[in-house]
């Protein structure tokens, strides 16, 4: 469409809004200085959910870590998380993080995203949140960097505060990395099977599995709702009461649709012989390597705590 090239001959008949140049109707497009509305951002988030999920699904087939039994990985994960949570010295965690990265590298995990997903999030949330705790106002102790005085007493960054902040930031980084190491190398359905095998009640596993599947259906529904609204919108939307009312209606519609869908899905399940039991397609076998991994994780946990006892 060549906007503005040919002057409309019947301008008098044409509604004013049709003559005005308009932003292209594309989700997530940011035209000029107009800020992307929260609806567009929600759409963007939805696309991100899709992307990451697809990514996780694809990545489950190759590498040594990927072939391990998910049950072994979950047990190892919990053991290592507890060990990391009990560490008292930041130095131990630095060594621990290096070891996690080394394992990820050896296991064929894409390194860039593995490191980036941790270090983009941890400084933004954890580091900012614990920064004030380095001050003597919050964490009293031995002052390393004096900044000001209060009634004659020097105030500033304390040794205790800095160490505590480092400890928390590193511990969060290690914990997130460990969880990522498992989720990036395990397809979602196998992870769920492992949860069931480890004693999570069957009804939960079934609900989780179905919720995951219908997440995408419902996300598609939301995308359609937003797109339909965008297609009907002829002037820049007001970022206020109208939007809020729309969100209310959209979530309400979503609830109604999911209610309806659940009813139909249930009938379909019963028609196919569902009687409360959910079967996994593949049955994984515990082999020697898996036992070895669990033992190695337990040994690593003991080593971490032993090293920490020396360093603290």
């Amino acid at each position, binding site marked *: 469409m060549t906007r503005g090239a040919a002057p409309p001959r019947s301008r008098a008949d044409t509604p004013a809004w049709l003559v005005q140049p308009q932003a292209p109707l594309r989700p997530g497009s940011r035209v000029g200085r107009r800020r992307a509305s*929260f609806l567009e*951002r*929600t759409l963007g988030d939805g696309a991100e*959910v899709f992307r990451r999920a697809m990514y*996780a699904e694809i990545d489950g087939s190759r590498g040594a870590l990927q072939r391990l039994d998910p049950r072994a990985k979950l047990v190892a994960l919990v053991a290592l*998380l*507890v060990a*990391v*949570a*009990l560490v008292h010295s930041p130095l131990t965690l630095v060594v621990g993080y290096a070891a996690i990265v080394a394992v990820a590298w050896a296991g064929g995990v894409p390194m860039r995203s593995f490191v980036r997903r941790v270090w983009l*999030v941890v400084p933004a949330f*954890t580091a900012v949140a614990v920064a004030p705790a380095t001050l003597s106002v*919050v*964490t*009293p*102790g031995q002052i390393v960097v004096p900044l000001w005085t209060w009634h004659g007493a020097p105030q500033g960054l304390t040794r*205790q*505060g800095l*160490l505590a902040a480092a*400890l*928390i930031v590193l*511990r*969060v980084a*290690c*914990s*997130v990395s460990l*969880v*990522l190491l498992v*989720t990036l190398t395990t397809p979602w359905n196998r992870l769920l099977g492992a949860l069931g095998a480890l004693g999570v009640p069957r*009804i*939960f596993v*079934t*609900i*989780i599995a*179905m*919720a995951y599947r*219908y*997440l995408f*259906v*419902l996300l598609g529904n*939301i995308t359609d709702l937003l797109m339909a609204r965008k297609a009907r919108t002829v002037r820049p939307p007001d970022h206020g009461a109208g*939007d*809020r*009312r729309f969100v*209310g*209606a959209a*979530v*309400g*519609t*979503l*609830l*109604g649709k*999911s*209610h309806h*869908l*659940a*009813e139909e899905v*249930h009938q379909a399940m*019963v028609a196919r012989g569902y009687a409360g039991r959910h079967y996994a397609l593949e049955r994984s076998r515990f082999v020697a390597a898996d036992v070895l991994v669990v033992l190695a994780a337990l040994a690593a946990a003991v080593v971490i705590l032993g090293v920490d006892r020396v360093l*603290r």
Partner: protein
Amino acid sequence: MHIPDGYLSPQTCAAAYVLAVPTLAIASRRVSRGVTTRQVPLLAMFAAVSFLVMMFNIPIPDGTTAHAVGAVMIAIALGPWAAVIAVSVALLFQALLFGDGGVLAYGANVLNMAIVMPFVGIAAYRVLAGRSALRSTRRVVAAGVAGFLGINAAALAAAVEFGIQPALFHTADGMPLYAPYSFAQTIPAMALAHLVVAGPVEGILTGAVFAYLAKANPEALRGTHGDLVTSPDAGASRPARVGWSTPAKVAVGFVAALVVLSPLGLLAPGGAFGEDAPADLDLGALGLQAIPAGMARYTGFWRHTVLADYGAGGAHATLGYWLSALVGIAVIGAAVYAMGRLVGVFRGRRATPASAVQD
């Protein structure tokens, strides 16, 4: 509010699991009672909805956005036990799939957002909505306020979990091992964020979704509002005041709220500003030579109190303190009761001519 791993000590996480796991077991039993298999897809759908609701960022006036949890909304539509399961599953997704919220801290997150929040919310909703009609404004407002209260209760629970960390877990030289902030810091910080930002968002969302469902799809509310859905006009034709808010109930509720909130006073450090007796003033620090004349003259103006200094003057100081606390509670309760009666009398006077005309 999704607590990541590393902020809470393993002991705290274990305690949270001890509370969360049996609640989840009760919830799955309560929900799957009766109809056996139908609830499975329904709960799965609502878990997905809850996850998506947490993705819906809502614009707030200062230009930023905040997201809601949706636990209260699901509790109103499906009942609190269904909300427990739906939000727990959504939280599990977030912990495992997106690293939002920790694995060890999952129990604590479930406790805050999937247990405390829907139950506080549904209790508030039931009290506030009373027996009003399904499509009445009061019910929408009740849903909104319930969402607001629910998320703030969850935030308070999180603040308490953070706040106990530095006191319980620190090294010998005072280095905190987990979350470094004490109650006096976590509670105001969480309260500010949730009273001002996340609370209104949750409230608006809950109210808006409820208004939409009541108007456009009352069938979705049948499970929890059965009698109201079958006869939508029945509520309207009923007398508007069925008497849930009798003066006695309001008085008891008020006193109960005070009793629950009063431990907050323990968090305030030091004495109460401006409440010292003149003799206790540190005149030197204030740059004064003597107690100001007016203060000295009027300080003893009223000496006829029954329980001076909260009964601390007598031989049994603790007993006196407790006695004065009980007397105080009773007096405040009686005062609220009297006000309620007074309001009732005036309302009755105003309402009588109208009803007389109708009759």
